[in-house]
């Protein structure tokens, strides 16, 4: 592998890792703070991608579609939390698995009824359609850099929110000791609703910005969900920092695995998980 190709793969793996982080961050927060296993998290990614496709066609602009779609998905998250999830925080993990599995079926069918079963492409905005030439025949699309940029900005925002703001302090307090936080006057129900909606929003935005490169297709959520599980297991449940590092690690292993060892590429990420489990059964950064 020459240096230009290596550089491209490196950028790709970082971009994939950051995208995974967007999904895994919400998932790990929902696990860590509310103790909920959410199999339907992949469906929010799919929801985002389909929103990007249908809204950008109607509004004529992907940027506008992302803004409107993010707002819609946060509202959707709030409604879902209020209607269903808040009744499941104290319940057994098995009940949560069944609930969220049922929701996957419902979301998939509603998607099929609303938007059909075809594969759709979402055009890259013209402004970002260019490629940066690296060598004579290798170049790197600007849009992928833009994706990484958005993910980085959101990751920084998330870091700021959780570690520097008053709301973030309450979120951390709720994750550390829910009863104590509540006794001290933190409105824990509100915190839960906010965290859940945040998780849904992040997953949907990930789906929206990925739509132009990954295209939009049925069941697109389930594959990404399992990758997120791997990321959360490696990073340690509840740890956003762990999720970031694990996501980048998974991105690297998956991307370079596909280039260097294509026969076993699909399994490499799981081997990585197995190795981590052997030495750190609770993940690298257990909170």
């Amino acid at each position: 592998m020459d240096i230009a190709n290596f550089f491209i793969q490196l950028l790709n793996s970082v971009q994939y890792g950051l995208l995974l982080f967007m999904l895994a961050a919400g998932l790990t927060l929902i696990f860590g703070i509310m103790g909920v296993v959410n199999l339907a998290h992949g469906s929010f990614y799919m929801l985002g991608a389909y929103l990007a496709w249908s809204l950008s066609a109607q509004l004529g602009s992907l940027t506008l579609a992302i803004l409107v779609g993010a707002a819609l998905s946060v509202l959707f998250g709030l409604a879902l939390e209020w209607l269903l999830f808040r009744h499941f925080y104290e319940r057994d993990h098995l009940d949560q698995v069944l609930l969220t599995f049922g929701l996957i079926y419902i979301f998939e069918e509603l998607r099929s009824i609303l938007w059909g079963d075809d594969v759709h492409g979402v055009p890259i905005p013209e402004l970002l359609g260019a490629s940066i030439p690296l060598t004579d025949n290798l170049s790197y699309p600007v849009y992928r850099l833009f994706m990484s940029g958005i993910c980085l900005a959101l990751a920084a925002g998330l870091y700021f929110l959780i570690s520097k703001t008053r709301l973030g302090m309450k979120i951390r307090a709720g994750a550390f000791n829910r009863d104590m936080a509540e006794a001290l006057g933190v409105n824990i129900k509100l915190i839960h609703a906010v965290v859940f909606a945040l998780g849904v929003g992040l997953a949907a935005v990930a789906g929206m910005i990925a739509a132009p490169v990954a295209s939009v297709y049925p069941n697109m959520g389930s594959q990404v969900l399992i990758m997120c599980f791997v990321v959360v297991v490696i990073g340690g449940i509840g740890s956003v920092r762990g999720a970031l590092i694990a996501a980048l690690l998974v991105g690297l292993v998956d991307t370079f695995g596909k280039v260097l060892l294509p026969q076993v590429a699909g399994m490499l990420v799981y081997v990585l998980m197995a190795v981590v489990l052997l030495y750190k059964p609770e993940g690298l950064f257990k909170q």
Partner: protein
Amino acid sequence: MIRSNLEILPRGVQVALALSLVALLAFPFAGTDFYTEMVTRMMIMAIFAMSLDLLQGVTGLVSLGHAAYFGLAGYALAFLTPQGEPVSLWWTLPVAVLASGLAALVIGFFVVRTHGIYFIMVTMAFAQMVFFLFFDNKALGGSDGLYINFRPDASLFGWVPFDLDGKRTLYYFTLAAMLGVYVFLRRLLLSPFGRALAGIRVNEHRMRAMGFATFGYKLTAFTLAGSLAGLAGYLWGTQTGYINPELMGFQMSAHTIMMVVLGGMGNIAGAIVGAFAFEYLLHVFKDLPQVGSVNLGKHWQLWMGLFIVRLVTFAPRGQLGLVERFGRSSKPQEAPHE
């Protein structure tokens, strides 16, 4: 908040099970071929669900990847069957079951050391690894899967005790397998080993403090459950003559979890009832009629999803199992003192 399982079946349930067995024995002479095949499939799923109940209901380990071991044995049968002739049942069945058991042993070595949410996610992830191994490799059938052209041959040194090509023979063979697995798991449940597994479900720390090497117990249960899932997978391959990666997918695993919950966890009989109920429900949903321009059956996932969500939202687990609900009418006996 640990509810104790209904392990000793009340007399009423025992009578109902015995009557159901009589009904199952007579069924092929009453139903059409279509229904004989359907009930065969239900019995195969019942074996699969019972194997999961050993983990989920008895030991308290919720596996979202159990379908991997089901599918592996089916693939083993597909690889062992040559293109042009049937292969002997008597060595392929043990080999297929062993293959699933071995996979469960290796994967179990990693997953059994995790707890709670981790266990759910890690079992699912490893099952997905197996899924992609078959899905991505053309040599292993790829996304299309493999055909099993001939059903296994049951002849022994020229003597043919039965012929699995017959729908009724396969039905009774499956019924015998289901009964065997049921009796085995019931005895296991009430044996010292089964008591230790139940102890792990209720409080693993205390079991360890009492000197039980819980890792070994859990790994044994995981391996055993994987092997029995393999038995079900082998029968599935025999019946359908076709095996594909979907059989190892997480939908399949989740369906099986649903079966065990539906029937009632931790008493093995519930898994059978749940498998029959779930498969029947699936059949009903997929068979819904065309209303106007909408084909209701095509959207079976929507009805199944709504059913599951409604069930878990409004009926907390424990009151949910069909066996428990039925058993409540007759008085449960005292649990034995160990």
